[in-house]
């Protein structure tokens, strides 16, 4: 044995053991794997999230120095991009200007015309500012960032953005920084608007750039309620000079003091910008991703022969993805920070790691023998592929190792990642995917199980032998047999997933609650963020309505009281270049109001007219309110990229400008007053606010309606069955048209092959069973007894009086002899006639029993059997001649007969040792079967060769059985009795005379006559629990209390006759001539739902367990889930499915179903789902 083979064997053994482990403990292993994935991914939290958002770093202004290029030692939290000088320093001068006091003679344009006009003075001041000290004279010109041409594509901005000089932007740029242009501009607002891009704009617009504050804060509009205009003058500096900036700041503050300004000015914020990905770069990336997805698609498409294709495909993708994440996490943990662009190398990593192993594993496991145990299958599948998996792994590792020795840093890094990724992928494949596969295979097994064991499933322990002798007594089973499957498991397997989701939603009312919670949250957010300015609106309303005296008195904001101090000691007024405007005209007014002789007294209109300039926290770093693309776009105009670089933003210089109304009027353009003004600006402003509010409300309403509609549609799409109405017909599915869910994956189909019991030559008329035996009688009068479990024919009781010759003679005759039996009642022979003519010549295969035809009464032909019952091994057969016969089911011998009545027996009930026979003339006969055991006295001819039968407690062949009429109720009903049922010591008859009668079995005493139907009774159900239900030709279903004889409920559900009725403990199931199956709640009588069947479906019903209903149809039987009304399965009985309907259906105790199918009987074993236990 070579080393290679040894190795191979060892690997294979190891994989085998591993497979056993994985399949044995799936849940712990999956938990363990998830835990390890999470642990390995934990370091990823420390990585910066991918994205192009800028990163900030704040340093103090006082001890600022330009950072070095090389990292100097350990700077703690200093980020690694903070090296070298920034691209630029940004100094913003934040100007807040207002005309105060606001005069009623002023027009809305005055709100911003004169404040904007001040920008030219300030610009001049800034440009001309010179700082001189010992180190020389510095001006702005020497410090600012000199820009050249604009980017070629931006010709239209040439007029507004500076070129060839300092990068200094302000609203003055709209007018080329020339006061004259501004003064002669008839409509400044229009000029500003002119440069705005049409349509949607999300990132920085020109207006944002020039104003330096977002549009809505600038206050330049006709509807400015606060009447404060805010703008900035942005100076971009290339180098930092603390002294120059300090003197500029002091100078500006001197000129325009901001009294109540407490902005901090000791911090400098450095903003680092990430790389922006252009579209040109994106296209190859997108291409690689498309290729990647195609690869994943084609790979997972190959997963086959598993329970849930999508589940496994998902597991495969999860395996690969989490192995990638793990590798990145592990590399980070060991200090290998990824420098590669993750998005770019990711597809290649996936391709290198590959999905092949996963597919190979799946295929290998799936191809193992199906009848093995699950864990053995997994283990075998693993060990079969172990060698190739290891070989591939080694090859890949080798290739990566070679790649590592290319000594190219990028490739080395890639290789490192790939190695760790490969190893973690191997780990996940072995633990995660294998376990998922084992779970999947186990689910698959269940379906397989059903397919392979059609007959044995749900059967009691094996029977002793093929020949069932009569020593087996019929064990009376008190409770109806319930098959071993639990309903939930059954439902889980059968119900499509989407339905389960819908049920879950319906059960928990999840959607409703989510919508409610969402609405509440939405309203909360709306109130909190105040998009429509409701709060300010309300505040304004309140302040306007407040008493006037408050405003004129001491309720002033603090700065108003402080301002005069500045005014008195203002040293700058003399330094002012231009005519010094009174910096604080407002305080003057106030002080006049307080101290001096009042000019006009407290003016009533003045309180809302005083625009208040306040400085708050948000002004400190006003640039934060701008788009994060603000600075990159400003620089990009001059072809300067900020990608991977940073800028430093210096603290703003706050400036407050107050203008008197006179100044505002002086600054007016002649056209300003002629402009068509909005008549009452305040109202229109209100209106605007209101409009916004309404818009938001309307949008919200529309969104809500849309959501509701969407959910409704979803509901209609997903939940096709509608309760309580005959809606979408549940079409019977044809063969090959198996139910599929959306994924085209059909639920597990257990191919139930029905057992066909052949032998009868004509259509089967009566069917009786006691669970162990099965007796059937065909139209030809032949009775056959079958073993209900194996389907073997045990006995054939031919129609006595018909020999084989007679029978063949009969077949030759076109019209059989019609005995004149039906004197007093409707003639039923046409039914029989039609069947006689179509009699198939298949009877010759069964040799007639020689001992059978010994009845003295019927010479040529005997009356046909109309009713039959089977108890123990006695068959009670009621004939059309009114004769009641008792046959031994095993031996096929007639044990007793009674010819007391003359009218044909239409129905029989055999309970305990009593037989109740309903006759065609409406009379009811009670018979008692007595068993005497005088040995050796054989009244009737028994089979001579079969005397050595073992003794049995009841009905042995030696017993003398006599059948005596104990009581005959002559006129039980006015009309023929149609239904006869017996249970729980009661006999219930239903007749065409619209009544139901209840008799006690012991003394044949009529207890109740139940009236309530308006048509003949067609169906009755009574069971051990004394539940009585009756259905009539009027389509009504009545539920009765058998103890009191009162009607519990009375419902109408069918358009025609009720043909069949069955009850479970919770519901009543009825079927009618209208091919509808209705399911009613038993206690309330409310219709739960109905199932529309195809036209011509049989009316036979049977309940197998609490939740499993079986119905007969055209050549098939269908199984339904009673809880949800879903068709579980349709079993086709024969090749020719059409034409012959199932008319009778019996549910046997061993969860089998017997139904007639033309001249054949069909024994269908219910698919039972048994959890396979390892």
């Amino acid at each position, binding site marked *: 044995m070579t080393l290679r083979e040894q190795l191979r064997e060892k690997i294979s053994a190891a994989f085998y053991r591993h497979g056993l482990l994985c399949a044995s403990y799936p849940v712990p292993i999956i938990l363990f794997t998830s835990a390890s994935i999470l642990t390995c991914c934990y370091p990823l939290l420390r990585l910066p999230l991918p994205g192009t958002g800028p990163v900030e770093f704040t340093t103090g202004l006082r001890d600022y120095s330009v950072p070095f290029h090389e990292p100097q030692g350990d700077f703690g939290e200093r980020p690694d991009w903070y090296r070298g000088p920034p691209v630029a320093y940004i100094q913003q001068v934040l100007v807040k200007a207002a005309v105060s006091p606001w005069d009623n003679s002023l027009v809305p344009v005055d709100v911003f015309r004169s404040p904007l006009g001040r920008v030219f003075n300030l610009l001049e001041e800034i440009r001309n500012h010179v700082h001189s000290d010992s180190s020389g004279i510095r001006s702005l010109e020497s410090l600012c960032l000199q820009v050249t041409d604009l*980017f070629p*594509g*931006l010709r239209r901005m040439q007029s507004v953005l500076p070129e060839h000089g300092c990068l200094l932007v302000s609203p003055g740029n709209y007018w080329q920084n020339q006061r004259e242009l501004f003064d002669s501009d008839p409509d400044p607002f229009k000029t500003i608007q002119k440069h705005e891009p049409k349509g949607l704009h999300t990132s920085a617009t020109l207006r944002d750039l020039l104003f330096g504050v977002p549009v809505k804060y600038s206050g330049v509009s006709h509807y400015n309620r606060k009447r404060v205009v805010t703008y900035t003058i942005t100076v971009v500096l290339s180098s930092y000079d603390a002294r120059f900036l300090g003197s500029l700041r002091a100078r500006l503050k001197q000129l325009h003091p901001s009294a109540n300004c407490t902005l901090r000015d000791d911090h400098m914020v450095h903003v680092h910008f990430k*790389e*922006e990905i*252009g*579209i*040109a*770069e994106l*296209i*190859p990336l997108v*291409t*690689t991703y*498309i*290729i*990647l997805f*195609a*690869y994943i698609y*084609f*790979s997972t*498409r*190959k997963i086959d022969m598993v329970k849930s294709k999508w589940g496994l495909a998902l597991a495969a993708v999860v395996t690969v993805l989490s192995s990638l994440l793990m590798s990145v996490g592990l590399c980070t943990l060991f200090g290998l920070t990824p420098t590669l662009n993750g998005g*770019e190398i990711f*597809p*290649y990593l996936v*391709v290198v790691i*590959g*999905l092949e192993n996963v597919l190979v594993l799946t295929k290998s496991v799936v191809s193992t023998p199906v009848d093995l145990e699950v864990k053995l299958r997994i283990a075998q599948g693993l060990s079969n592929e172990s060698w190739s998996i290891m070989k591939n792994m080694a090859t890949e590792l080798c*290739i990566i190792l*070679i*790649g590592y020795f*290319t*000594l*190219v*840093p*990028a*490739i080395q890094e890639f290789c490192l990642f790939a190695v760790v990724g490969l190893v973690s992928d191997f780990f996940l494949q072995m633990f995660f995917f294998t376990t998922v596969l084992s779970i999947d295979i186990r689910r698959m097994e269940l379906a397989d199980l059903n397919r392979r064991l059609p007959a044995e499933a749900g059967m009691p322990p094996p029977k002793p032998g093929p020949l069932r002798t009569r020593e087996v007594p019929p064990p009376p089973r008190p409770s109806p047999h319930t098959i071993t499957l639990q309903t939930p498991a059954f439902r889980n397997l059968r119900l499509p997933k989407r339905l389960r989701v819908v049920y879950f939603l319906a059960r928990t009312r999840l959607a409703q609650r989510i919508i409610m919670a969402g609405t509440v949250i939405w309203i909360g957010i709306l109130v909190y963020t105040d998009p429509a300015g409701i709060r300010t609106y309300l505040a304004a309303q309140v302040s306007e309505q407040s008493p006037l005296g408050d405003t004129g008195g001491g309720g002033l904001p603090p700065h108003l009281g402080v301002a005069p101090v500045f005014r008195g000691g203002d040293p700058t007024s003399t330094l002012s270049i231009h005519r010094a405007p009174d910096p604080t005209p407002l305080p003057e007014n106030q002080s006049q109001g307080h101290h001096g002789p009042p000019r006009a007294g407290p003016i009533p209109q003045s309180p809302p007219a005083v625009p208040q300039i306040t400085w708050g926290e948000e002004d400190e770093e006003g640039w934060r309110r701008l788009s994060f*693309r603000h600075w*990159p*776009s400003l620089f*990009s105009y001059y072809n300067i*990229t900020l*990608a991977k670089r940073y800028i430093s933003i210096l603290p703003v210089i706050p400036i407050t400008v107050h203008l008197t109304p006179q100044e505002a009027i002086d600054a007016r353009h002649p056209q300003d007053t002629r402009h068509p003004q909005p008549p009452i600006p305040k109202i229109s402003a209100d209106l605007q606010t209101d409009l916004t509010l309404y818009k938001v409300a309307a949008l919200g309403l529309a969104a809500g309606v849309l959501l509701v509609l969407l959910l409704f549609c979803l509901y209609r799409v997903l939940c096709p069955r509608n309760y309580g109405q005959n809606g979408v017909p549940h079409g019977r599915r044809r063969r090959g048209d198996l139910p599929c869910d959306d994924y085209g994956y059909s639920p597990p189909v257990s191919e139930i092959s029905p057992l066909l019991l052949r032998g009868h030559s004509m259509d089967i008329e009566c069917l009786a069973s006691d669970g162990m035996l099965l007796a059937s009688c065909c139209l030809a009068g032949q009775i056959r007894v079958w073993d209900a479990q194996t389907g073997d024919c045990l006995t054939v009781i031919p129609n006595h009086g018909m020999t084989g010759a007679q029978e063949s003679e009969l077949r030759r005759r076109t019209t059989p002899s019609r005995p004149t039996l039906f004197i007093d009642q409707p003639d039923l022979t046409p039914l029989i006639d039609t069947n006689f003519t179509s009699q198939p010549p298949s009877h010759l295969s069964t040799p007639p029993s020689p001992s059978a035809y010994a009845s003295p009464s019927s010479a040529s032909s005997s009356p046909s059997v109309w009713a039959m019952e089977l108890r123990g091994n006695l068959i009670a057969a009621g004939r059309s001649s009114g004769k009641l016969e008792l046959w031994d089911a095993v031996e096929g011998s007639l044990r007793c007969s009674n010819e007391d009545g003359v009218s044909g027996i239409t129905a029989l009930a055999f309970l305990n040792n009593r037989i109740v026979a309903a006759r065609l003339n409406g009379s009811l006969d009670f018979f008692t079967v007595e068993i005497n055991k005088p040995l050796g006295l054989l009244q009737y001819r028994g089979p001579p060769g079969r005397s050595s039968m073992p003794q049995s407690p009841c009905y042995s062949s030696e017993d003398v059985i006599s059948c005596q009429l104990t009581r005959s109720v002559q006129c039980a009903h006015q009309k023929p009795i149609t239904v006869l049922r017996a249970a729980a010591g009661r006999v219930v008859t239903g007749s065409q005379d619209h009544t139901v009668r209840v008799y006690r079995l012991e003394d044949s005493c009529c207890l109740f006559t139940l009236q309530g139907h308006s048509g003949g009774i067609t169906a009755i159900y009574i069971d051990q629990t004394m539940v009585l239900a009756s259905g009539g030709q009027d389509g009504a279903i009545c539920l009765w209390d058998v103890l009191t004889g009162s009607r519990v409920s009375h419902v109408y559900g069918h358009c025609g006759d009720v043909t069949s009725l069955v009850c479970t403990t919770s519901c009543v199931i009825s079927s009618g001539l209208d091919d509808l199956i209705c399911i009613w709640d038993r206690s309330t009588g409310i219709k739960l739902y109905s199932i529309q069947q195809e036209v011509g479906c049989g009316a036979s019903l049977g309940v197998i367990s609490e939740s499993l209903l079986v119905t007969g149809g055209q050549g098939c039987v269908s199984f339904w889930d009673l809880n949800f009304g879903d068709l579980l399965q349709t079993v086709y009985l024969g090749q020719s499915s059409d034409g012959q309907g199932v008319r009778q259906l019996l549910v046997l105790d061993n969860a089998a179903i017997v139904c007639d199918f033309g001249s054949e009987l069909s024994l269908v074993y219910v698919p039972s789902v048994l959890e396979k236990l390892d």
Partner: protein
Amino acid sequence: MSLTLTAMSGRAVTGDQQQWSRSGEMQHSRGPYISVITNRTTNLLIRGAMLFSVGVFLALVLNLLQVQRNITLFPPDVITSIFSSAWWVPLCCGTAAAMIGLLYPCIDSRLGEPHKFKREWSSVMRCVAVFVGINHASAKVDFANNVQLSLTLAALSIGLWWTFDRSRSGFGLGICIAFLGTLVTQLLVYNGVFQYTSPDFLYIRSWLPCIFFAGVITMGNIGRQLALYEYKFIQDKSHQD
């Protein structure tokens, strides 16, 4: 530079979506299509068209990889950057791709040794991904010197062949076409049709043959996979007959 790589490399995939949908049609709708598709000439034409479109697409995309990283917030014109190469480059690539893609299955059938190694679309996609990766590496990864770059790419190309092809005919054809392509490019550059920014192997870059080789292998893979469909259909047809 931007003309360089893609001069010949345009033989891979991603226009495959078209192919798949079309081949899907072939498979499922057995209507009047069947006669058209099983017709040998039509089939050849369809395959050629597919391969051509794939080649053109890859030429355009891989050309973009060569575009230097310009961080432009307002990309001047995406369309022009896509069609930054001369108009004849994608056409040449497409034609070459179609020729190679048709040649491979043809040679396989002539030699009588049908290619059986990894005949499935997922493998083909993997191959294409690796080919794009090789191009990516040549464009984006900074190598110390050109020899190292060329050697790495050569190793990668051989690895591609070993992983996805492993046929002697494929290897031979790849070598031949790579040699021819290199020769043609040399001649083109010599005649001044275009030029490389930093030629290190006569007039061209030394890694160009490797890229050619990888491209030939990839296109051959696609061509063989497409031919497989034709084969299947002819089989089906004979079954039906």
